[in-house]
C-alpha cells in the first residue's frame, strides 16, 4: 500500500527547507565542531595507512585488506585494520514500511533525513541514503561535497512507501554488505518490527558501526483518545479490526506503547547506540538541533 499522493502534493524540500538546513549546518559547525550527532571522521578505523589490528574476515570485506601471510601460516582469513584521518561515512536509512503512512511520519522522516544529509555534507562527511522496509529497497552510495546535496535530496524525496512490514535484521545485513567499513548509521523509523530491533542492532554492532535510532511517532499513536465502537485500520500488516474500546483497554494500550519505547531505548543503551524518540509535532529543524545538542552532551559525559 502506498500513500504517496498524500505526501507529494507540495515539494518536500523547498527553498524554506534548504534555508533551515543551512542554518542547521552553521549551528553544527559553531556549536558542535562539525559533528553530526556527536560523530566526526577523525581517526577512523580502516581507510588509513597504519595497521592497528586484525579482525575476522567477513563477507564483503575488501580482499586487498586480507592478511595473506597470516592466512598462509595459520590457515585463517583475517582482515587488517588501518587507522588514519578519514572522512565520516554516514548512512541515512528511512523506513518506507506501511506503518510510516500514519499521519505525517514518512514526510517527517524524509525531512529529517534530508536535513541530516545537508548537515553531514556541509561538514565534509560522506553521506549515503537508503530506503528500507522488509529490506533495503533503494540506496544511494555515500556522496561527498555540497554539490551532492541535490542528488541526495532528490533520492530521499523519491523514496516511496512500500506497503511491506519492517525487517530491521535483514536491512542491517544488507547494509553491511554495501558498507563493510564502520560508519554512522542513522535509522529513521517507527520500528514496528515484530521481531524486535535487537537482532538488527547486533549485526551493526558486530561490524563496528555506530547506530543512532530515531523513533518517530504520530501523536495519535501515543494518546489514542477514541473510545467505544472503533474500526481499527492496521497499516502494517494491512487489516481491519472492529473493537470496542473502554478505558481499561485504552490504558492497556498506553502501557504497551510505553513498554515498546522503553525496549527500544534499552536495546540502544546496551550497545552504546544513540536513540531519540520523537513525535511529528515539533518542527524538524528544532528537533534536529535538539538531537545534536543531546548527542554532544552524551559525548562529553564519561560512560
Amino acid at each position, binding site marked *: 500500500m502506498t500513500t504517496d499522493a498524500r505526501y507529494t502534493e507540495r515539494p518536500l524540500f523547498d527553498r524554506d527547507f534548504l534555508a533551515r538546513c543551512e542554518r542547521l549546518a552553521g549551528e553544527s559547525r559553531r556549536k558542535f565542531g562539525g559533528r553530526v550527532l556527536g560523530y566526526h571522521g577523525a581517526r577512523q578505523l580502516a581507510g588509513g595507512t597504519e595497521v592497528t589490528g586484525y579482525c575476522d574476515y567477513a563477507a564483503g570485506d575488501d580482499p586487498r585488506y586480507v592478511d595473506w601471510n597470516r592466512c598462509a601460516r595459520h590457515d585463517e582469513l583475517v582482515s587488517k585494520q588501518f587507522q588514519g584521518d578519514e572522512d565520516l561515512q554516514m548512512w541515512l536509512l528511512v523506513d518506507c514500511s506501511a*506503518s*510510516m503512512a*500514519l499521519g505525517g*511520519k514518512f514526510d517527517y522522516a524524509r525531512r529529517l533525513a534530508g536535513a541530516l544529509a545537508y548537515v553531514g555534507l556541509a561538514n565534509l562527511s560522506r553521506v549515503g541514503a537508503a530506503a528500507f522496509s522488509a529490506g533495503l529497497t533503494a540506496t544511494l552510495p555515500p556522496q561527498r561535497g555540497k554539490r551532492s546535496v541535490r542528488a541526495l535530496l532528490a533520492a530521499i524525496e523519491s523514496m516511496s512507501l512500500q506497503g511491506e512490514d519492517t525487517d530491521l535484521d535483514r536491512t542491517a545485513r544488507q547494509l553491511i554488505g554495501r558498507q563493510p567499513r564502520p560508519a554512522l548509521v542513522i535509522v529513521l523509523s*517507527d520500528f*514496528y518490527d*515484530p521481531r524486535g530491533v535487537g537482532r538488527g542492532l547486533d549485526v551493526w554492532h558486530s561490524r563496528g558501526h555506530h547506530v543512532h535510532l530515531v523513533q518517530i511517532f*504520530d501523536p495519535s*499513536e501515543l494518546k489514542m483518545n*477514541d*473510545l*467505544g*465502537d*472503533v*474500526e*481499527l*485500520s*492496521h*497499516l*502494517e*500488516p494491512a*487489516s*481491519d*479490526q*472492529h*473493537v*470496542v*474500546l*473502554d*478505558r481499561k*483497554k485504552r490504558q*492497556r*494500550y498506553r502501557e*504497551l*506503547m510505553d513498554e*515498546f519505547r522503553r525496549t527500544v531505548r534499552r536495546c540502544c543503551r546496551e550497545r552504546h547506540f544513540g536513540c531519540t524518540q520523537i513525535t511529528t509535532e515539533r518542527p524538524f529543524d528544532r528537533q534536529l538541533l535538539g538531537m545534536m545538542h543531546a548527542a554532544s552532551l552524551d559525548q562529553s559525559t564519561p560512560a
Partner: protein
Amino acid sequence: MTLLDPNAIWWLLLAVPIALVYLLRLRSPRHEVGASMIWRQVVGDGSTSPTRRRAVSACCQLALLALLIVALVEPTFSERAAARRIVLVIDTSASMTPAGDETDALHAAKRRAAALIDTLRRHDKMAILSAGEIVRRHIGFSDHGHSLHAALDGVVLDGTVLDDGGGGNRVTEAVRLARRMIETDVIQGSGGQIVVLSDAAFEGATSLAAADDVQLISLGGQRGNLAITRFAVRENFLRSGTSEVFVEVTNLSGEPVETTLLIAHDGRQEKVLTVKVASRDRWSETVEFDLPEGGKLTATLQLSDAVTEDNVAELMVPASRSTRVALVTQGKPVLRRALEALPKVQLTVVDDVENVPSDVEVTVLDAVVPNPLPPGPLLVINPTGSSELWRLAQPLDDTTVDVQRPADGLLRNVRLDQAYLSASRQIVPLGDAQVLAENAAGDPLYLRIRRPAGDVLLLAADPDKGDLRLHESFPLLVAGAIDSLSGRTTKSEIIVAEIPLMDHDRWAALDATEPNDAQGGMPLWPAYAAIVLASVFLLVEWQAFHQRWIL
C-alpha cells in the same frame, strides 16, 4: 379497544430519529493505527461485530417508545368510557368579565372549554350551553371538534348585572336543561356529565358543586370570600323590651375588605353597618333592636364574592310578651324586688290568696300555704305548712346546697353550691317530684312537683334570711322559675345562625381540569407489566452499550 387520547399517536414520529441514529451508527468511526503488533496484545485477533448489538439496542429503544405511546394514548376496553355525553355550561353573566380583557373569567372559561373539546374521545359527544340572563344552547350533542369550537367561539357575555341573585345568572337552570339533554340522549351504559365553567358567584353554587353529575370548575382567579359567620339575638337585660343583635363577619380572602352590612327587619331595612375587616380576620358588632313583636331579621353583605350563600343570614325572633304574676306575701322585700326586676313581668302583690286575680299566669306564694292549693302554676317560697302535695317534717340540720341539678333551664346560670339557706323544715313530697337542689343528707331544698292543674316549684328557704338574700343567683333562680312556669322561652338564649363556612381550599378541591374518567375499575396489572417490560428493555440497553455509557 378505544384510544382515549388518539392525538398522542403522533409521538410515533420519534421512531424516525431512533431509526436514523441506528442507521448512522451502523458505520463505526474508523481509526488508522500504525501497526497491529501493539493492538493484538490489547484486543486480541478477534473482531467484534456491532451489528447485532446495535440492532438489539434499537429494538429496545423502539420498544420503550412503544410503551410510552401506549401509556399516552390511554387505550381502554371499556365501552362505557367510550360513550360519554358531556354538557359544557359556560357562565356568561356580567361577573365573568370584571376585567374586560383576555384575562377575565369568560376567556379563561372558553380556553378551558376548548381544551376539554380537544380531549374528547372517539365516541364522546359534547353540547355547549351558556348561562347569562337567559340559557342558550349553542350546539347540541356533537362529536365534531370543529363544530364544537365554532360554537364555542359564539359564546359571548350575556348579562348586565353581577351575580347577586338578582337574575343575572341562570346557571342552575342551564344545569337542569343539561340534565334533560343527557336523559334524552344518553345511550345504554354510557355516562353523562355536566361541566360548569363559572366564577361560582351565583346562588346555588355550593349545591351544584356537591352534585354527583356536575363538575364545577371555578374560574376567575382567587376571588375572596366574605362570610357572615355568626348572627344571634337576645333580650336586652338593661332595657326591657329591646333586643341585642350580634353579627360576626369573617374575611376568608387574602385582601382586606370594606363593605356594608344591611340588617333588615321583616324586609324593612333597619341598620346599615360599615364592615372593615383585614385578611383572614373577623369583624363583629352588636346592635340594639326594638323587637316587641319579634319577626325575621336578615343580614346581607353588599358585595359579590366567591360564595354568595354566606353573604345572607336570617333568623326568626319570637314575639315578646309580658307574664302576669301574682305574689301572695306578707311583706317580705327580697322576693318582691326580685320579681319586680324581671323584665316583661306584670306583678300583682296581694296579701291573701283570695285576692289573686283570675287572669294571672303564675302565682307566687311567699310563706303562705293555702289549703287546698290554688290552681295554676305555683312558686312556693318558704312553705310554712303541709298540703296535698307535700308534707313538712322536722327542721333540717343542714340547709346548705350540696347537689344542684339543672333541668329545663330552671337553674340556668344559677350556682347555689355551698350556699347556706335559711333554717327550714324537711319537705316530704307525697307524690313524684323532681329534686333540683338538695343538701348533703339528700333532703330536697328545691324541687318541682308536677300536677294537672299546673306545676309547683317549691323552695324550702326564706329569701330574707341566710345567704340567699345576698346571693346573685337568686334573681336568676326566680327568673328561671317564672319562665318555666309560664311556658315562655327564655330570652337569654342565644340564637346562632348556622352559616356554612367555605373558603378557597374547598373551592380548590372542587376545581378540576378534566371531566371525571368513567373507566372505573381498570385492572392495574397491565401497568405493572409495562413497567417490568420497560425495566427489562432499559437493562438490555444498558448491557448493550454500557461500555460507551461509562466513558
